Structures are given as C-alpha cells and as structure tokens.
C-alpha cells in the first residue's frame, strides 16, 4: 500500500503552533536572544499581519516595538476586517443564513490568525449561535480548543473539551472522535496526567490526522514519553515495542529509539545517558517543560524498581556499575526515594548491600482487607444512624 499523505486531511494551521513554540523558546534564558528564532517569528508576524500578537510579543519579551511596522499591520488588519464586516452585512440583507454563517466564520478565523484573542473568542461565540449542523459546531469547538492550547488557557480548554465531548456523544463521526482524542491527550500531557495521555495517544497512533498541532514524528515522541512513564512492562511491550507504526517512525528518531529500548532491555547505563538527553529535549518543549523534573524523577524510580524486582539483595557496587554512576550517587538517590516510600528496600551500608523487602502479597492483601473492612463498617454505622431516624 502506498503511504497516504494524510497531511491534506489535516486542518489549517490556525493558530500556528510553531509560533507558540518559538515564543516559548525565546522566553527561556538560553535562547533569549537567538537571532534565527527571532527572525522566524518576525517573518511569520509580518506575513500574516498579526498586529495584536506583535504588540503582545513586544510587551512580554520587552522588545522595542517597531511603530512603523505596527501601524502598517494595523492598517491592513483594519481594511480586512472592514471588508469582512461589509460582506457579513451584505449577506444578512441579501443572502441566506448559510452565507452569513460562512462570513462570520471567516471573520473569526481571520481574527484568530492575526492573534487577537478576545475579539476572536467573541466572534466565535457569535458564529456558534448561527451554526446548527453538528459537524460545523464541532469544528468551531476544535478551533476554540486550539486557541486555548495556543495561549495555554486552561479554563478555555477545559470548557471546550467538555462541550466537544458532549457533542461527540450526540453523534460525532470517527474522524472527529479521533481528533478529539488527540486534543484531549495533548491537554492531559500538559497537566501531567500521563496515564490518560498515553492511553489516548496509543489509540490514535494509526489514524493521526491532526497535523495542525504537530507533525507525526513529534506525536510519536510524545506517545513514547507518556507510555514509558505510564505503562507497565507487558503493556509497554505489546503496544509500543511491538507497535508497527511506532517502530516505523522510530527508525528516523534514533535518540528516542535508544531511550525506549535501553529501558526495555535493561541497559541501565545507557538508559541514564539517554534520560539526560531526553531531559534536555523536554526542557525546550512547550508542553513538557513544566514537568521535566517530575518526569526524570519518575523514570529513575521506574528504572530502580525494575532492577530491584528480580533481586532480594544486591551489592551497591553492582548497582552503581550497572547504572554507570558512583556509589555515593546511588546511595543518595536510594536514601531519598526510600525515605519517600517510593522504593521498597533497605541499604546495608556496612555490608555494601541493598536488600529488598517487597511486601508479601498475602500480607498486603490481609492488610488491605482489614483496612477496607474497617472503612465499610464505619459507613454502615453511619447509614444505620441515618435510617433509624
């Protein structure tokens, strides 16, 4: 089967997420004055005459505002908006409802394109009142979610995700259903809900068409990151290591491939090295930057747990060697995680040994039974008090 170029099925890149990523990079101390990124952003701003966005940029990044450029863009914006307003009026007077809706949609999209958030939101609301068909209403909601993701406005995203879900439940088609899954997955990932994000991404790997959000290799990268932290080993093997689409893309992403396979094949030294590289990559990614510390800590815990699982006791030296670090580092790490209750083991520093004390399954079940039985009894007592009144 020839590869289908699904890019044509993707929606238009409006708002353009590349801009958001570039803006994010410029806000990091390392890239603050990187000239190429600045050039890229300015080029895009000029090409689309994004006057309000330009003002916003200059304020937040404390650049000097080029007034001439700003005025030129504002003029173009005003002219275009006037044209759109005229066509809306004309449609209201002479043409039918459908044309009115179309022109209102065009105006909303234009406002979104030039980066005027408030005006675009209000225009979208007006258009929503005019739209009746389920498909078009869903498209509008998707547009709003995209804007929310562009400005990272959690309130906006949440509200529209709920709305989209209820609309889809009324009867959305598969294409839009999958698209919603991708959007929801991105949002979950950005709020650290990796488990749900992993599930949603893995569902949509085969049918990805949302090229307006990101390109396919980036999507697979996010999928691998979320699955590694969220999935258990057997599931990870089934869905990711043996997943044919993921394997295909991993051929062109050697770093991510090594990251995944080093954990799966227990090459812990390499895994740590790859983790350091991945951490670097995450720091400069708009969605994952707030979570990179959490992610690296969790991945370290997963690696330690995996190693400790097959041992009742092992030497500190062996562990340090396996991970390619010094004994002091391992000692410090283990001490921290054991004290936090994340690892089930004890360090015997005199003998230089780490002993695991995994709770025996029967014991744990006994404890759990007692605890839950207690809670249940309390609630039955409360219930009996209520009923006896």
């Amino acid at each position: 089967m020839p590869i289908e170029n699904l890019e044509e099925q993707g929606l238009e890149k409006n708002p353009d997420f590349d801009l958001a990523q570039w803006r994010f990079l410029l806000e990091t101390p390392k890239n603050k004055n990187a000239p190429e990124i600045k050039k890229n952003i300015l080029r895009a701003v000029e090409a689309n005459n994004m006057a309000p966005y330009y003002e916003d940029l200059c304020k937040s990044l404390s650049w000097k505002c080029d007034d001439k450029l700003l005025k030129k863009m504002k003029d173009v914006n005003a002219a275009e908006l006037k044209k759109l307003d005229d066509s809306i009026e004309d449609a209201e007077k002479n043409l039918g409802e459908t044309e009115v809706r179309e022109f209102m949609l065009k105006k909303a999209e234009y406002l979104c394109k030039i980066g005027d958030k408030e005006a675009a939101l209000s225009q979208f609301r007006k258009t929503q009142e005019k739209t009746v068909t389920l498909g078009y209403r869903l498209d509008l909601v998707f547009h709003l979610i995209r804007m929310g993701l562009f400005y990272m406005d959690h309130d906006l995203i949440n509200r529209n995700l709920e709305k989209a879900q209820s609309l889809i439940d009324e009867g959305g088609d598969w294409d839009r259903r999958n698209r919603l899954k991708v959007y929801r997955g991105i949002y979950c990932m950005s709020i650290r809900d990796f488990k749900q994000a992993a599930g949603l991404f893995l569902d949509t790997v085969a049918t990805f068409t949302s090229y307006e959000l990101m390109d396919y290799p980036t999507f697979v990268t996010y999928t691998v990151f979320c699955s590694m932290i969220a999935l258990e080993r057997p599931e990870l093997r089934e869905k990711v290591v043996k997943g044919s689409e993921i394997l295909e893309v991993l051929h062109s992403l050697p770093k991510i491939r090594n990251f995944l396979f080093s954990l799966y094949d227990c090459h812990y030294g390499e895994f740590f090295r790859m983790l350091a590289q991945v951490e670097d990559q995450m720091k400069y990614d708009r969605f994952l930057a707030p979570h990179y510390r959490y992610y690296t800590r969790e991945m370290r815990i997963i690696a330690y747990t995996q190693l400790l699982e097959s041992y009742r006791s092992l030497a500190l030296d062996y562990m340090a060697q396996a991970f390619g670090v010094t004994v002091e580092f391992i000692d410090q790490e283990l001490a921290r995680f054991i004290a936090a209750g994340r690892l089930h083991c004890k360090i015997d520093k005199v003998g230089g040994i780490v002993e695991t004390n995994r709770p025996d399954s029967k014991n744990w079940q006994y404890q759990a039974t007692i605890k839950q039985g207690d809670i249940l009894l309390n609630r039955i007592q409360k219930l009996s008090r209520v009923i006896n009144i």
Partner: protein
Amino acid sequence: MVSKAKAAKLVRGLVDLFLDMEAGTGKEVELCKECIEWAKDEKRTFLRQALEARLIALYHDTKDYQDALLLASSLLRELKQLDDKALLVEVQLLESRIYHSLSNLPKARAALTSGRTTANGIYCPPKLQAALDMQSGILHAADERDFKTAYSYFYEAFEGYDSIDNPKAVVALKYMLLCKIMLNTADEVQAIVSGKLALKYSGPEVEAMKSIAQASHKRSLAEFQKTLGTFKAQLSDDPIVNAHLKTLYDNLLEQNLCRIIEPFSRVQVQHVSNLIKLPMDQVEKKLSQMILDKKFHGILDQGAGVLIVFEETAVDKTYENSLDTIQNMGKVVDALYTKAKKLT
C-alpha cells in the same frame, strides 16, 4: 546523431549495467536522478518510470527509507493508471522490502499481497516470481514464526533461482536451512545438503548453516558462539539470519538455564555459570531478565551470590474475593445512603 528511441535504449542499458555492477561508488543516486531529469525533459515516460524503480531500490540500499516510500507511492499511482503490471509488481515488491526494513510488518505483508495479486494477472518471469517467493518466505518467518510455510516458499524461490542459474539461489538455500534449524529439526539439514540440488551450491554459506545446525542439535551454546565468530560474514552480516539466530540463541540459553536450575531450590550463581560454561555476569543478567519477564519464579540474592527458586504457590483466591465483596458492599451502602437521604 542518434534517434530518441535509440538514445533512450542506450541510457537504459548503461544505467542497468552500472547499477548491476553494485560497485558502491556513492554516485549511483545522483546518476539515477540526472537520468530521470533527462527522461522527464525528453518525455520518455516509460524510461523515467523504469529509472525511478531502480532509484527506489537504490534508496533502499542506502537506507534512505522516507525518500524511497515517497517516490514509491507516487510511482505506484502512475503505474496503476497506466496499468503497467510488470513494473507494478516490481515496485510493490520493493515497497514490501522497505516496510520490512522499517519493521512495519503489517504494511510489508499488505504490499506483498498486492504484488502477488498483480503478478497473478500477467506472465511473471521466473526471476521476479522467485523474488516474490523469497520475500513471502522472509515475511512468514519474521513475526509469525511460521517456519513451515516459510520453508516451502524458500524452496519455491530456490527452484526458481536454480532454473535460471541465479547466484541468489544460494541465499534461498541458506534460508531454507535456517527454517529447518528454527523448527528444531536440525537433522534434516544434513539430508537437504546432501541432496542432488544442493550439492552444486556447497560453499561457506552452507557450511555455516551446517555447523549452526550441529550446535543447535547438541544444544551447546559454546559451539554456537564459535560458529557465529567463524562465519561472521555469512551469518551476522545478513540481517534476517542474524535476527533469527539471535532469537534461537536466546531460546537455547533460556531452555538450558531452566533445565539446569530445575533440580535446585537454592543454588550459587557461580555454580550455574560453571555448568553452562558462560561468564558469570552474563548468566546473572540473563537470569534477572528472565525473572522480570516472569519466565520462572525465583529471586536473586546478590549478597550471598545465590539464586533462590520459589515453588509455584497456588494463588489463594479467598483474599481477592473478600476484597471484591467489600468493594461491592461499599457500593450498596452508597446506594442505600442516597435513597435514605431522598426519603428524609
């Protein structure tokens, strides 16, 4: 001055000769591209399509898979419109090979099936037919581990190549023997090798497979490793054979380890490694991986350097059931609570 048709024929012949030499000078891709541009200018469509097919094969050899796939999809669309079945089969076979190299087996199988269907509609030259059979064998052996079917496909491919005296026949024979080894019927290898057809192909490839068969028959890992070292060019450098032999080695190692550990409930890792004649840290790593994959029930104690094997405990369902019951009771209590609230 030469006429256009003759010029096209010359170009085609020259490019074919150059590429068949497989000299690996690195200039092949550029040469192909130049000739394709020329063919486009001169509007020699058939020449261009044939050249593009060869370019795809070149991209596959240089591991430039993305370009290969793009070119293949556009070429396939054109060929389907023109209904040029012969070239279509070749390009579909190439596509299957590319997907196989990208480890995307479902798509590789799909491409191969479409290639076979197209080939059924035309007279397929023996070389192409043998290539199709070879690819089917490779795919069947890959993930499905269906070595019986793979063996029969390789046999067909072998006969096909043999009838036109193509050097690829040796490769087909090698894969046939590989299938027999993976089926654990290594003794049949000897029978095939001394058969009439195979005798004229005896050489390093066949020798390599024979010694692998012997090592697997004796279940000796040391011999296996030795063979891999001696016959590196025939075994490790061929990606398909390499992948299967790795799996075979892993299986052999695991089986041996399980057999050795069976009589013990507590054994020193050093002792195990002596019995299996492999270095200790390798044995320990392998054991820890097997425990992780739940291939046997046990645990390693590195402090004392021992492996402890657990008995298979019957899982006691009582606790699980009691926990489930408590949870359900909780739900009942919730429901009653809400009903009681409504009444008051």
